[in-house]
């Protein structure tokens, strides 16, 4: 029985890969036949070769490392502030009154509109990209944390009080787990915005990272490297999503 279900699971996860694999094979065939010109798209094998070439020189990993660390630092800074502010405004009505209107106003400005300003303030160094990523991931985490705390069943909080919980134990045992589903939704949104912001920021102004690698390759008409960069973003995005899902499975076991 267990063996059957694990086999079933493997088959299940393989199904979702059928379409991507078929598309790549089709792409290779069409390229080989010359139906897609090398000017429009390089053939998949060319992209793989570029990946191998850049891996050997270490360039690829260096760029991936740069981009990932930017993304993560931005996430920690912006997400951390969003989380903290969400808790603050969710738990203390006076703080919400003071801060929420301001946050809602700022939220309506697309954060990418601040790129020129960010470049003027910080130049094209790390700070500008960190600023943009942090700003981008701040809002989903703030909003969902705030909403999560506000939607914790008041009956459970009252029950906790009858059983003598208040302050930190009440927060840790009832409010935080109650808000967790919503916070994790916020995290997944934030991860999407994190990569999106980074791609734009790195493409516009950078001297390292995957976006820089793509723009640099464009100058030299290296189509294979351009496509490789796009693939890297797709892979990293998917990886972040998988990690978020694992975290969800771990924190929300009770919902299965």
């Amino acid at each position, binding site marked *: 029985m267990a063996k059957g279900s694990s086999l079933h699971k493997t088959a299940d996860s393989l199904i979702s890969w059928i379409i991507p694999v078929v598309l790549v094979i089709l792409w290779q065939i069409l390229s080989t036949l010359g139906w897609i010109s090398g000017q429009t798209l390089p053939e998949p094998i060319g992209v793989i070769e570029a990946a191998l070439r850049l891996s050997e020189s270490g360039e690829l990993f260096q760029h991936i490392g740069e981009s990932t660390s930017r993304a993560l630092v931005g996430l920690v800074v912006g997400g951390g502030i969003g989380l903290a502010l969400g808790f603050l405004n969710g738990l203390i009505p006076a703080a919400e009154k003071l801060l929420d209107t301001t946050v809602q106003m700022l939220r309506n400005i697309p954060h990418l509109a601040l790129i020129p300003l960010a470049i003027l303030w910080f130049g094209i160094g790390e700070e500008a990209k960190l600023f943009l990523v942090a700003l981008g991931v701040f809002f989903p985490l703030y909003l969902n944390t705030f909403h999560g705390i506000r939607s914790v069943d008041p*009956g459970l909080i009252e*029950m906790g009080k*009858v*059983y*003598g919980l208040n302050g930190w134990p009440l927060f840790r045992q009832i409010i935080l*787990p109650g808000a*967790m589903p919503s916070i994790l939704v916020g995290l997944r949104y934030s991860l999407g915005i994190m990569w999106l912001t980074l791609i734009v920021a790195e493409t516009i102004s950078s001297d390292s990272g995957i976006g820089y690698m793509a723009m640099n390759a464009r100058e030299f008409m290296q189509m294979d490297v351009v496509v490789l960069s796009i693939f890297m973003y797709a892979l990293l995005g998917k990886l972040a999503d998988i990690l978020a899902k694992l975290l969800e499975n771990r924190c929300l076991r009770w*919902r299965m």
Partner: protein
Amino acid sequence: MDSHISGTRLFIQGLQKKFGNRLILSSVDLDVKPGEFIAIVGRSGCGKSTLLRLIAGLETPTGGAIIQDGHRISGLNPAARVMFQDARLLPWRKVIDNVALGVGGAGDSQKESAGRLLRQVGLAEYAQEWPGILSGGQRQRAALARALVSRPRLLLLDEPLGALDAFTRIEMQQLIEKLWQEQGFTALLVTHDAEEAVALADRVVLLKNGTVDLEVPISLPRPRQRSSALFASLAGKIRDQVMDSIPTSQKPMVKTMSFIRSRNG
């Protein structure tokens, strides 16, 4: 292990509660003996749940006082545990950890008491499950275990069986009665079910117009036979009294209060 604890004694004097300009309880006087089982009946909106919440310390009175064992209650009542209409189990904690919350923790000794209570309410095999898979009746049994694991001296039951089907309800009533007899706590049960009141209570209290309108001692021997004529007639009388307590303009029948008084008092 089954050491009998003494239930609390409650003196309620001139208790009043207003929400804004609305007077919910005008003046409630009630004297509850240690270990007594009181059922509070009344039409919805008569303030019976508010009375319970005041005794639990979840609300503050606007007048009068609740004296528990000689001390006036202010703030949360530490001697009391409450069972609500919904079980209010934490969905992110295993059943046994929910029960252990009643003794304030997840240590070994707490888990041991929690496990013992789960056995008493017949949920031992669900200890390691999430509450989400339990049926309504099982959830209330877990909530009962959580309320009683700390051996409270006062148990407040706010229509805890209202949402259950008839068979499960009777089963739960028997369980509550059994644990009450074993532990000896004082119990206050708010209910809209006259039969439930007669099945469990030593005394039924009718709330009307924000005050105690009638008290009916029930002296039937336990366990009570629901099929007996006396049981049925007592439940019927109480039901009539509750029905009777709607505003004068809508009164459907003549008062039967004097009859009950002469019969029991």
